[in-house]
């Protein structure tokens, strides 16, 4: 029989991994709920998932490719920005879903106990479903444009997981802080939008003036966008430090997010 001991929370609380594992069913059910609702309540569920990156990529290729006349590392502008949107959507959706999730589940949190961290994490599942669907479309586009990325495509799942970690780490911290300070909810969308234009989603870093390149290279999302394009479009391989950086930073951010979340967790039910 399991013995549970409840004591006042200490200053630092590491996430209880065993407890999270025992409650994995909750994660799965939350994820299923999100997925089912997404495709049940909307008339043409899947179409939205496909339409959004398509339209964005179309607009980007007109604005940046035609109007501004930027280069796209020698790839067709449309598929170039589509891959950018693919990676960007994965990151921003994970961040957005998890950030708002705690405040959105108030009733649950003040009524029943389960590892709270599962609430923000569960959003990731449905985002991944969307990602896979959009990726399918992307593969179709690759055939249409006759692009063969070669073996780097095998590393794509790794980049997808890592960029989701990055988003989840930030989302965890944001969701926990939002419980106490609701202004996060207003600032975050604005920050995310700013970040999108600050990251080479719709343009290439090679178009950035050389005196600003260092600044762009500080942005982990720029590394990920390079890695995604390398894996899907066969653009030249990014510098080795970007590989290392992407792995290290995303894992660090996820761990940091978890600790911030745990620190706030003990007072959720009282504050929310």
């Amino acid at each position, binding site marked *: *029989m*399991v*013995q*549970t*001991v*409840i*004591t*006042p*929370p200490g200053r630092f609380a590491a996430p209880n991994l065993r407890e999270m594992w025992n*409650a994995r*069913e*909750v994660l*799965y*059910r*939350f994820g*299923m*709920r999100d997925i*089912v*609702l997404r495709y*049940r*309540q909307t008339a043409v569920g899947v179409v939205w998932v496909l339409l959004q990156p398509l339209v964005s990529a179309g607009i980007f290729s007109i604005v940046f490719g035609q109007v501004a006349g930027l280069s796209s590392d020698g790839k067709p502008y449309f598929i170039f920005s589509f891959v950018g949107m693919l990676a960007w959507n994965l990151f921003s959706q994970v961040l957005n879903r998890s950030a708002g999730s705690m405040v959105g589940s108030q*009733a*649950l*949190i*003040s*009524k*029943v*106990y*389960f590892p709270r961290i599962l609430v923000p994490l569960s959003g990731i599942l449905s985002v991944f479903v969307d990602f896979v669907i959009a990726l399918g479309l992307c593969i179709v586009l690759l055939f249409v444009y006759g692009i063969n990325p070669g073996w780097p495509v095998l590393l794509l799942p790794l980049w997808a997981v890592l960029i989701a970690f990055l988003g989840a780490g930030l989302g965890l911290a944001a969701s926990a*802080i939002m419980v*106490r*300070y*609701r*202004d*996060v909810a207003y600032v975050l969308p604005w920050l995310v939008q700013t970040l999108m234009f600050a990251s080479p989603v719709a343009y290439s870093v090679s178009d950035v003036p050389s005196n600003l390149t260092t600044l762009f290279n500080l942005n982990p999302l720029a590394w990920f966008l390079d890695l995604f394009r390398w894996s899907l479009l066969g653009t030249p391989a990014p510098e080795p430090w970007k590989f290392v950086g992407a792995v290290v930073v995303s894992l660090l951010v996820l761990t940091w997010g978890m600790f911030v979340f745990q620190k706030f967790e*003990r*007072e959720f*039910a*009282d504050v929310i």
Partner: protein
Amino acid sequence: MRVAGLGKTYRIGLSGDRPTTAVEAALRWARNPVRRGSHELFDALDDLTFDIPWGEATGIIGRNGAGKSTLLKVLTRITAPTRGRIELNGRIGSLLEVGTGFHPELTGRENIYLNGALLGMTRGEIRRHFDEIVDFSGVAQFLDTPVKRYSSGMYVRLAFSVAAHLETEILAIDEVLAVGDAEFQAKSLAKMRDVAKDGRTVLFVSHQVQTVTALCTSAIYLDKGRLAYEGDVAGALDLYRRSFEKFALEQRDAGTRPGSGELRAIDVEIGEDQLEPDGEKTILVRVGANPKLIGSYFVSCHINDVNGSVLVQCDSRVVGGWYDAATEHTIRLTVRTPWLKPGRYTVDVFVCKTGVLDAWEGAAGFEVLPHNPYPELAGDEALTKGLVLADFDYKED
């Protein structure tokens, strides 16, 4: 299950003190970086120590605000304790509010799985109990309908059924039996009794004295966050009932009563101390004067039974009773229906204008004599079910 020195302290701000936005927090910090904010500490629970042996069904009783619900919340880990230590042998499941986590758009089937998982069941457990749950709830034919189309009764029944089939060793229940129709309530009660008989530990918070008596083998009485009694059910209920009298005595002093105090009821009298079940009940309320108070006020009297359930509310507004605050009034309330069952009753009196001026709970009490108001005599069970008696007859058409 062992609880030692358990305490839970809330910080309550003096002036809505806790900053709710980051900007506010930053401003406050900028203005006064040293001060840690003035707040009062409120002990919702204080130094609770008790053991509940394996397989016991324990009732937790106490007046409103005694900390019953907080205790359950701490035990079920919804909120963390501030002090002390709890040791639980086995998993704890809670039935704090049925239907938590139900999503209106999901079907009954999907909600059973979601809710079960939330309450801590594994997939295997839910699958094993699935048929039982559906059967118990009686919504089998609507299993694939989104629960937003359920009637509220069906919704609650399904929710309760999921929770009732939890297999945890300890089960915490808060007032959930007040759901559904009479038949379902009886079914739930029987189910709860089975749970206790299974050798599982049940913690039960309720205002309903009947259910505590029916279900529990021992009880804890909480008074203002402290443990006032631990032992058998009868002793705790006795204390609970007596607390009403003690409370009534305290309330005689107008200064201790809630309400703005601009106008106070001076005296509340019952026409007679002992009444017939079918007799008219008259209540005389004498309200003081306050020339400074402009306008007229109304009064509202509640009659409560011995368990604290409000049986009737007699608001003077609905019969056009408005009184001028400038002079003293003696107001006579006459209640003709319903008939009251034999027993002890208390009267709460509220004097209100736009807000509550005076809230006098337990202002008076009276006894209804154990007489039968009906023309024929029958066994006791002919009268016990309802809360009140009605003036009725049967005729053949």
